[in-house]
C-alpha cells in the first residue's frame, strides 16, 4: 500500500447546468450551425459532454456581419467608460460563477480542478477587470490621443487554456472598441459557449461578441480570409500561424500571433536547488505540459546535474496523475487522442537518438488519454526532443558549463517565447535576461501570468504582445489620417 495514497476527493459536477447541444451565438441569438456537429468529450473519460454545432463559411459570414453591424451602430459609438462598465460586469459575473466555470473547464479540457479553480478562472476575471479599466483611458495607450479601434476582430484560440485564452483575446479587443468573432478550439468549446450566458447577464449589446465553434480548416479559414475582418488574433501552432500570415499577405488586416515554444529553463549551480526543482516541475508538468511557454528544455549546470536530476525525479514521483476533478490531482488528462499520439510519437524518438528515458511509474485510468510525466536525460541540442515542441509532460535535460554556453543553447531554437533562469547571483540573472531571446523571462520562478504583464514571442513564436498596455495597442490604430 502506498502511504501517500489519499481518499478520492472529487469536485462535484452538480454545479454544471449544461445543455445537450449548442449552436452558434451570432448577433445576440443562438442559431443553428450549418457545418455539421461533433461531440465535445471529456478527455479523462472519453464520454461525450454535449453536441456542438460547427460553423461553415456561411455561418462565419453571418457572424462577421453581425459584428460589423454592432461595431457600426453600437459599440464604436459608445463612450469608453460605458464599454468599460460592461467589461467590469463581465469580470464580476465570472468571479461569481467561477466554480461553475472551473468545473466545466476541467471536464472539457482534462486539466486538474486545482489549476482551473486557482489559476485559469481567477486570471480570466482579472483579465476582464484589468482591460475594463483601459476602455476609457485609451489616450494613454501610447498611440496619441483619440486612437481608433480596428473594427471587427477575428479571434482563434487554442485548447490548452480555453477560457483564459478567450479572456486574453476578448477583453482587450472590447476595451479598445472592437467587436469580435471568436472561434474556440475544436476540442474545448464548452466554456466559450457558457461565456455567452455571462455576456447576456451583463447585458452586452447583440453582435459585440459572437462565438462560433468550428473546424480550423473550415470556420477558422473562413474567418481569416473574410474580407469584413480588420484584425486576426491567433494563438496556436506555428504551422497554422505561418498559414495565416501567408493568407493575410497583401491585405490591410492587422495580425498578432502567439505560437509555439521550446522554453529553456536554466539552472545554475548557485541556485536554490529545492526551489529550482519546484520551478522545473511547474515549468513542464503544469497543465500536462500543454503550455506554449513550458520550460520543456532543462539546462542544468554540469556540476549539479546528477544531484538536481535525482531530486527532480524524487519530486516528480510525488505527482498525482489521474482524475482531473479530484482536488489532489497534479497532472490530469491529455486533451485529445490526437495530442496523445503526437506526444507519444515525439517521445519515441528520444531513446533511439541517444537520450535516457525515465517515466513516472503510476497507475492511470483505463478510459481517457493519459501520458505519465517523463524526463529524458543525456539529451543533445540536435535531438528531436530538444528541438520540437512536444506540448506534453515531457522534459528534456541538457547540460552546460559556462553562462555563455547556457545562453547559446537556450537561444539555439527557432522559437523564442519563454525562458527561466535559476541563480542567486543577481548580476548573472540580469545579464542572462539581457541575452535570452525570449519574450518572457522568469527568474527564480516559472509560468507566472498576469493581465498587467505583456506576453508574447520572438522569432517563430509569433509577434505581438498580450497583456498590459502592449496588449491593448494590438487592437488600436493611431487616430487621424494614416
Amino acid at each position, binding site marked *: 500500500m502506498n502511504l501517500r495514497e489519499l481518499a478520492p476527493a472529487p469536485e462535484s459536477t452538480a454545479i454544471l447546468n449544461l445543455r445537450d447541444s449548442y449552436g452558434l451565438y451570432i448577433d445576440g441569438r443562438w442559431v443553428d450551425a450549418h457545418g455539421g456537429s461533433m461531440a465535445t468529450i471529456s478527455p479523462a473519460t472519453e464520454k461525450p459532454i454535449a453536441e456542438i454545432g460547427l460553423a461553415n463559411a456561411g455561418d462565419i459570414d453571418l457572424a462577421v456581419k453581425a459584428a460589423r453591424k454592432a461595431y457600426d451602430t453600437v459599440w464604436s459609438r459608445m463612450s469608453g467608460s460605458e464599454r468599460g462598465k460592461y467589461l467590469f460586469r463581465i469580470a464580476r459575473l465570472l468571479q461569481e460563477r467561477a466554480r461553475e466555470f472551473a468545473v466545466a473547464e476541467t471536464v472539457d479540457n482534462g486539466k486538474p480542478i486545482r489549476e482551473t479553480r486557482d489559476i485559469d478562472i481567477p486570471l480570466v476575471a*482579472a483579465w476582464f477587470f484589468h482591460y475594463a479599466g483601459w476602455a476609457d483611458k485609451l489616450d494613454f495607450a*501610447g*498611440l496619441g490621443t483619440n486612437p481608433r479601434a480596428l473594427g471587427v476582430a477575428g479571434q482563434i484560440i487554442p485548447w490548452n487554456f480555453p477560457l483564459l485564452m478567450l479572456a486574453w483575446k476578448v477583453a482587450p479587443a472590447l476595451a479598445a472598441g472592437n467587436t469580435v468573432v471568436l472561434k474556440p478550439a475544436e476540442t474545448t468549446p464548452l466554456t466559450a459557449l457558457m461565456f455567452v450566458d455571462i455576456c447576456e447577464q451583463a447585458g452586452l449589446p447583440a453582435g459585440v461578441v459572437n462565438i462560433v465553434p468550428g473546424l480550423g480548416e473550415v470556420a477558422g479559414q473562413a474567418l481569416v480570409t473574410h474580407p469584413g475582418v480588420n484584425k486576426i488574433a491567433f494563438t496556436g501552432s*506555428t504551422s497554422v*500561424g*505561418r*498559414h495565416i*500570415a*501567408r493568407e493575410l*499577405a*497583401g491585405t*490591410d488586416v492587422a495580425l498578432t*500571433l502567439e*505560437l509555439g515554444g521550446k522554453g529553456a529553463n536554466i539552472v545554475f549551480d548557485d541556485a536554490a536547488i529545492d526551489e529550482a526543482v519546484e520551478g522545473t516541475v511547474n515549468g513542464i508538468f503544469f497543465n500536462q505540459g500543454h503550455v506554449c511557454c513550458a520550460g520543456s528544455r532543462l539546462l542544468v549546470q554540469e556540476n549539479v546535474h546528477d544531484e538536481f536530476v535525482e531530486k527532480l525525479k524524487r519530486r516528480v514521483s510525488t505527482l498525482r496523475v489521474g482524475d482531473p476533478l479530484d482536488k489532489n490531482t497534479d497532472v490530469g488528462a491529455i486533451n485529445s487522442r490526437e495530442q496523445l499520439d503526437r506526444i507519444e510519437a515525439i517521445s519515441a524518438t528520444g531513446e533511439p537518438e541517444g537520450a535516457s528515458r525515465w517515466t513516472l511509474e503510476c497507475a492511470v485510468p483505463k478510459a481517457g488519454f493519459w501520458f505519465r510525466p517523463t524526463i529524458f536525460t543525456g539529451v543533445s541540442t540536435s535531438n528531436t526532443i530538444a528541438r520540437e515542441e512536444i506540448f506534453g509532460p515531457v522534459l528534456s535535460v541538457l547540460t552546460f558549463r559556462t553562462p555563455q554556453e547556457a545562453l547559446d543553447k537556450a537561444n539555439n531554437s527557432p522559437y523564442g517565447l519563454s525562458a527561466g533562469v535559476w541563480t542567486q547571483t543577481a548580476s548573472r*540573472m540580469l545579464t542572462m*535576461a539581457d541575452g*535570452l*531571446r*525570449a*519574450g*518572457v*523571462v*522568469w*527568474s*527564480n*520562478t516559472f509560468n*507566472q501570468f*498576469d493581465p*498587467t*504583464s*505583456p*506576453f*508574447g514571442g*520572438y*522569432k*517563430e513564436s*509569433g*509577434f505581438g*504582445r498580450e*497583456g*498590459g498596455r*502592449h496588449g491593448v495597442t494590438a487592437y488600436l490604430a*493611431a487616430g487621424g489620417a494614416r
Partner: protein
Amino acid sequence: MSDMTIPKTYKLFVGGKFPRSESGRTHAVNRPDGGFLANVATASRKDARDAVVAARSAWSSWAGATAYNRGQVLYRVAEMLEGRGAQFAQEIIDSTGATPAAAKAEVRAAIDTLVWYAGWTDKFAQVFGGANPVAGPFFNLTVPDSVGVAVAVAPNAEGSSLLGLVASIAPILTMGNSVVVLASESAPCVAMSFAEVLATSDVPGGVVNILTGNVAEILPWLASHADVNSLDLTGVEGEVAVEAERSAAETLMRVIRPRTFGATEKSFDRIARFVEAKTVWHTKSLA
C-alpha cells in the same frame, strides 16, 4: 591645365567595405534629362546573402552598445551629413531634377531625422516599457530588445532619395538592429554616397549594408532568408510587396507593410516596429 572631372565608381556597401557586385554586373543610371549619370553596381543574390551575413555578425555588438553610445553614433552620422550637405544637394539635383531649394531642404530634413532618432536611443525604453504591477510578490519589468537583422526597401517617392533612405535606416538602428537596405532604384547614387557618410561615422561595419540593383530581383531572396528577422516594405508596392510578405510568413518575419508609414515619416511607432518587448519576472522576498 585640364578641368576634366574624375567620376566616382559606385559600388555596394557591405560589412563596412565597398565591394563591387560579385556578379560583375552594373547598370547605367541616367539624369532626369536622359543624360548618362553613372554606372552603379547591380547586386546579385550572392551579394544579398553576403549582406545578411555581415548584418548578422554586426548585430550583437551594436545591440549591446549602450543607448548613449548608439545615440552619439547616430548624431555623428548627422554631423558627417551636415559637412557634406552641398555635395548631397547637388547629387539629389543630378539624380532627381529637384530644384536647389528642394534639394537643400531634403538634406536638412535628413539631418534633422538623424538627430531626432539619435535622441530616442536613451529614451525609448522608458516610454515603451516599464514596471508592471503584477498581483504577486514579483519584480516585473518590460523592456525593448532589438529584433535582429532587418531588410528595408528605401522608397522611390519624390523628395525621398536621401530622406526616404535615412527615414528607413534610422529607426531600425535606434534600438540596436542591423539592416540590409535596398536602395531606391531611381536614386542609387545618392544612397551610395550616403554609405560614405556611414563609413566615416563610427557606425560599426555591417550594421548598415546598402545594395543597389533591381528590387524585384533581390527582394525575394531576402524576404525568404531564414536569418532575417524583419522586413520593411515601405518602399515597395504591388505584387512584389505581396510576394515578399508571403515569403516572410515562412519564417514569421515581422513585416512592415507598404503604406504603414509615409516615405519620409519619422515616428515613435516606426522605432516600435523594430523592437521586441521582453518581460522579465523576478521573485521578491526577504529570504
